[in-house]
């Protein structure tokens, strides 16, 4: 089984249009993905109403698509209200933020309130990571230090240039997990040999990327020198300890 914890469902982002739910699930079938955590595309630019729109797109695919909310810390206390509504009323399973595209610092006081709320709601937060000046692994590490109870996932695991930072903070903070989508192969090899396998989760960025890239990400994990048990931990078991999938 494979659970993809990093995807974007249909929406508008510049000239990108994302993938409609039916086609999205068909790609999941073709690539062997059982469940996917789905995020917005457009909500990083205007969060208003984006959680509702995303949830309505997942209707009919409740056992396959598990929506994550996003909120806009620039909206002040509204961000906390939006998160509570997303989780408690709409049933969303986590929070995705993209501090670079959303243009906020992880030290932003309103964002810290959002993290506090995420801890209360017991949901994970997944971040885009690897892009200065707002989305660096050490900035997420700094947050992990402030909120040892928060479950923080580094999407992209620091990318090509900051993966060493991602490894460093994953080693240092118990509550940091890495999702090495788009990370260089040698970086992922280093991750599996230096940090506990229980801290690695699988993601593809489908929606921003396409079906071919899902194949490449699956292949990347298959090429790693891992036992079958370890591979299963990365493909689906670890994420189940962070996200509630109803089963």
């Amino acid at each position, binding site marked *: 089984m494979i659970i993809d914890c990093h995807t974007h469902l249909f929406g508008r982002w510049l000239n990108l249009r994302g993938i409609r739910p039916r086609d999205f699930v068909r790609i999941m079938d073709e690539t062997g993905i059982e469940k996917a955590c789905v995020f917005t595309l457009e909500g990083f630019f205007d969060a208003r109403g984006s959680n509702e729109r995303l949830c309505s797109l997942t209707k009919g695919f409740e056992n396959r698509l598990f929506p994550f909310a996003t909120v806009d810390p620039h909206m002040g206390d509204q961000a906390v209200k939006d998160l509570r509504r997303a989780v408690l009323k709409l049933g969303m399973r986590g929070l995705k933020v993209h501090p*670079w595209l959303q243009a906020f610092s992880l030290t932003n006081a309103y964002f810290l309130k959002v993290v506090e709320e995420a801890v209360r709601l017991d949901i994970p937060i997944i971040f885009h990571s*690897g*892009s*200065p000046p707002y989305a660096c692994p050490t900035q997420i590490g700094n947050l992990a230090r402030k909120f040892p109870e928060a479950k923080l996932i580094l999407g*992209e695991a620091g*990318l*090509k*240039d900051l993966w060493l930072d991602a490894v460093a903070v994953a080693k240092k903070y118990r509550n940091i997990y890495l999702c090495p989508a*788009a990370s*260089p*192969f*040698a*970086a992922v090899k280093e991750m599996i040999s230096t940090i506990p396998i229980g801290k690695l989760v699988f993601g593809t960025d489908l929606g921003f*990327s*396409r079906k*071919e*890239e899902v*194949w*490449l990400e699956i*292949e*990347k994990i298959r*090429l790693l020198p891992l036992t079958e048990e370890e591979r299963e931990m990365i493909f689906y078991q670890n994420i189940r300890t962070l996200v509630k999938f109803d089963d």
Partner: protein
Amino acid sequence: MKIIDSACTLRRGRVGELLAEMDRCGIERAVIGPERNFIAVENRAGNRYVAGAVRRRPDRLIGFAVASPWLGPKAVAELERALDLGLTGLKISPAVQGFILTDPQVFPLIEFAEKARWPVYCVTGTPICAMPLQLAELAERYPRVKFIMGHGGFCDFWNDIPDALRRCPNLFIETSYILPSQISAWIREAGIEKFIFGSDFPFSSLDLEIKKINFLGEGIDKQRIFRHNLLRLLGKSR
């Protein structure tokens, strides 16, 4: 199809391993440069072992030289030695060597490359020093030098790639790390002649980098990306 890889790193003492991987993946020839520590310091030792490998297998390996711009005139002297040893291109890595691409201290190295008719491979994608449009500035300053944008600006500079490529007829892009969907879009915008296969082996996976190019649409002539564009750039007929 015989593939030529424009971006491999030769680890010291690992020629056999590299050749075996090339054989396994169908790579006819590869451009090789020295390891990261030899790019940052100990340039001469790096150039020497790369040249040694090229001398052993001139049919399979093409060697690019390195020199830290911080060495000033000594850097150019090192490139002259590398030329005598049989190396045929320059590799620069601003993030590893600690300079930005508009810094005049790199100009003498590029002027040497121009004189020697060497292409210049530059690692890109790292702010604040190795961004595609910074490389475009350098390429415009030296229009007779052919530049290769290593790793295609991965990851955050995709917006800048088509402009950088269109601005500079002498600027080409190497395909490691960048997504196939991005490559397809940029081919439409900037022309297929700009695209050169590179794997960044052993740091990226040669298997996955080749598979990625094969995922590009049917209308895209992969032979040009895998082989012809680089041969033309290197001034080789075949």
